[in-house]
Each structure stands twice: as C-alpha cells, then as structure tokens.
C-alpha cells in the first residue's frame, strides 16, 4: 500500500508551519501520523503537502503552571501514559493514554494529532471533555481558546479552522477530593473504543457529588458530554443505585451510530454500562 506523491516540509517552528498552512489550502499537518498515514496509504487521503510538526521541540511538554496543567500538542501518548506528574495530578490522562492503540502507536502518536483528527472512536476526546479542557488553537492571526465542549463538531470535524493548528491542551488542576476513571470496551481488531467513558468527579466534604463531568466516545459521530448523567449525579451521595440510575442516561438524546461490531441498541447499552463503571471507579478513587 503506497501513498500518492506529496510534498513534505518539516517545520522547525510553529510559525513556519502556520505560514505553510496559510499558503496551501489543502496542506495537511503531520503529527504522529497514526491516523493520517494509513489513510494516505489506502489513498483515502491524498494531501499535496504535508507539514510535519512532529519535531517542533516546544510543542512537546507536560507542565504545571499556576494550578493549570499544560500539555503540548506533540506530546506522545506514551509520554502522557508514563508521566509521574500526571499520574499524581491528573490520573485520567495517563489512564486514558494507556488504552490507546498499542505500545508502538502510543510511542509515536500524539495527543494533539488525535484530538485534531477527532476520530469518533478515539479515546482522547472523552477525556478532554470530562476534564473540561481548553484547547489552544493558533493561526497566523494569533491564538484563541476553544472549550472542549465546543471543539468536537461532527464526525472527524473540529472547531479548528483552516490555517489553525492545535498548540496546547490546558486543564485546570482538580482538588484532592477528585476521582477520575476511564472505562472502555476495546474493538477486538482495531483497539478503538467501541465505547469509552471518561469520568471526572469531585466530591464535597460530606462525600456528596459536587461536580461530575462525563465524556463519552465511540457512541456517536463525535465524543459528547453526558449532561443528563452529570446532572443526575450532582448534589447527592453516590451509591451503586444512584450511579446506575444516572448512568442510564448515558446516551440520552444522542444520535447513536451502529456498525458491524455493535448495533445502535447495543452501543446505547454499552454506553450505560461503561458510564456506570467509570463513575463507580472514579467515585472510589475520589473517596
């Protein structure tokens, strides 16, 4: 399987990449390449120009700054999976990273590439939503912040506009009463999420649920926030029954997609099951 010909430029700086992108409407950004390159080899994607941003040094970092976690777009899944800092302050990210593809994919694939590609069964979008992340989009005209809820627009379609590059993902650090978990059914062949649920809960001092944030991937054309689940959780102590009742709303109002492996009905059911599991695990960790 052989890609169609294309031109390739390795950008040394973000500005250089942005300039190239501005000049070439059909240019594609190459990050880790694990979504784009298979599509190119199958000739489902035939961009005339690839702008490789994979080596831009200052796009690969994990840092904490004034209560905010900042992750450079070119940080690999493995860097996140193995980050001691994140394991401590935002364990959902390493946990979610560990569910992506396989070891080799995690070594090369980047969070920015995945999020910008926005595969409907990708893992990151669920976590990004659950963590109420903000995404920093940069273009020739400057930077703008996009909230996770506004970022995922439709099937493989994000709020990134032509000429924009995702530069950074920002997450506000949570307090020590926060519990997080990612629960997923892996597709047996591709490893993609048949359903993936990221839960991020903060309990109040009495053990009640102060804040719940649930992101779900794999179910619909894009990852979404399970609002009905969140509101059913918020404000009360979480026991098994409460969690199950809330999780039953996991796919409320969602346009569910079916495929060969999982029909719409089954996916709806799985969304509920894995929501329940993610919340239960997160609750446990918060306690």
């Amino acid at each position, binding site marked *: *399987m*052989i*890609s*169609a*010909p*294309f*031109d*390739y430029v*390795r950008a040394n700086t973000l500005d250089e990449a942005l300039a190239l992108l501005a000049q070439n409407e059909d240019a594609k950004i*190459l990050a880790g*390449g*694990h979504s784009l*390159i*298979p599509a*190119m*080899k*199958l000739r489902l994607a035939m961009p005339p120009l*690839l702008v*490789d941003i*994979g080596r831009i040094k200052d796009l690969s970092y994990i840092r904490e700054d004034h209560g905010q976690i900042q992750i450079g777009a070119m940080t690999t899944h*493995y860097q996140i999976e193995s980050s001691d800092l994140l394991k401590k302050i935002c364990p959902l990210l390493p946990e979610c990273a560990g569910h992506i*593809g*396989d*070891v*080799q*994919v995690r*070594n*090369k694939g980047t969070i920015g590439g995945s999020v910008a590609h926005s595969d409907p069964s990708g893992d990151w979008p669920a976590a990004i939503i659950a963590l109420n992340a903000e995404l920093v989009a940069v273009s020739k005209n400057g930077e703008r912040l996009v909230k996770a809820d506004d970022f995922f627009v439709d099937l493989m379609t994000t709020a990134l506009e032509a000429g924009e590059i995702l530069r950074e993902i920002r997450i506000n650090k949570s307090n020590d009463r926060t519990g997080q978990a990612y629960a997923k059914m892996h597709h047996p*062949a*591709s*490893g993609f999420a048949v359903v993936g649920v990221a839960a991020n809960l903060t309990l109040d001092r009495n053990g009640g649920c102060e804040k719940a944030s649930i992101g779900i991937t794999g179910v619909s054309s894009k990852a979404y926030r399970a609002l009905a689940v969140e509101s059913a959780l918020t404000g009360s102590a979480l026991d098994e029954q409460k969690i199950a009742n809330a999780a039953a709303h996991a796919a409320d109002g969602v346009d569910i997609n079916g495929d060969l492996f999982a029909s719409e009905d089954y996916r709806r059911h799985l969304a509920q099951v894995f929501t329940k599991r993610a919340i239960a695990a997160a609750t446990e960790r918060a306690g």
Partner: protein
Amino acid sequence: MKQAISINVNEVDHRDEVEPRLLLVHYLRDLLGLTGTHVGCETSICGACTILVDGQAVKSCTMFAVQADGANITTIEGLATNGNLHPMQEGFWEKHGLQCGYCTPGMIIAATQLIDRNPNPSRDEIRHGLEGNLCRCTGYQHIVEAVEYAAKKKADL
C-alpha cells in the same frame, strides 16, 4: 520532489535522497537491503514492521523515511552485539517463540522495549505489552515464555 535524509541505522550512517512518500520500512528494505523488517498489514495493526527509532518501538510502515531524518534506528539485524544474540533473540530460540518467523523481528523488537521499560514483567503485562504485534502461528504462549526468559537473562547479566 526528492529530499535528502541522513539516518543512522544499526550504527551505520546513511545519506540518501528519497521521495517524501517512501515509507520508512521500504527505505530500510529496498534502499538499505535490511529485509529483516517485514510488512504484514497496511493499517498499523500487525507490528511486523516494528523497529526502534531513537530507542522507541514504532511501526515503520506508518512512518515516512523523511520523518526519520536524523534519527538513530535499530532493526532486527542490529540487535545482536559482536555476534552475540540479544537475550530476547535467545529467548525466542530457547522457548520456540516463533514458527514461520514472519512476525518475529517485529515481535522481538517490541519485546526488547517491553523489558527495557519493565524489567520484570508479569505474564499479563507481557501479553498487554505485545498487543501491537500479531502472530498467527504460535498462539503467543511460547512468546510469553521467551520474554520471561529474556527478562531473567537480562537481569542476571
């Protein structure tokens, strides 16, 4: 348009002009003649093409050669040192971790990284650590034993 690349493979420097679309695996196989790295699928699933790029296991069929410009690469041909098999190669031999041998180079490379990162893996960790590599012959059990053998051997060294 062809682009100049400079890549160190198995401790030998190479400079070539390549089309941007040339896959790294084809560069290794067709230009450098290092045919130990195999191609088993085209969708980054099977792992037969696994090599080490700057010490990290990656699938060389999902990478263009131009992306590896300046990188240090280890392929299966470069794993043995001074004619001595790498403990992982030994493990695969001792434990019958291969049959047709096609997935083996990628499997061995992935497994070496596995024990580098986790020197004393459980069987479950070995199995999960190799989920990016498919083998259609062995049923994996002997591969798990091979990795255990290599981990122990490496620890004893």
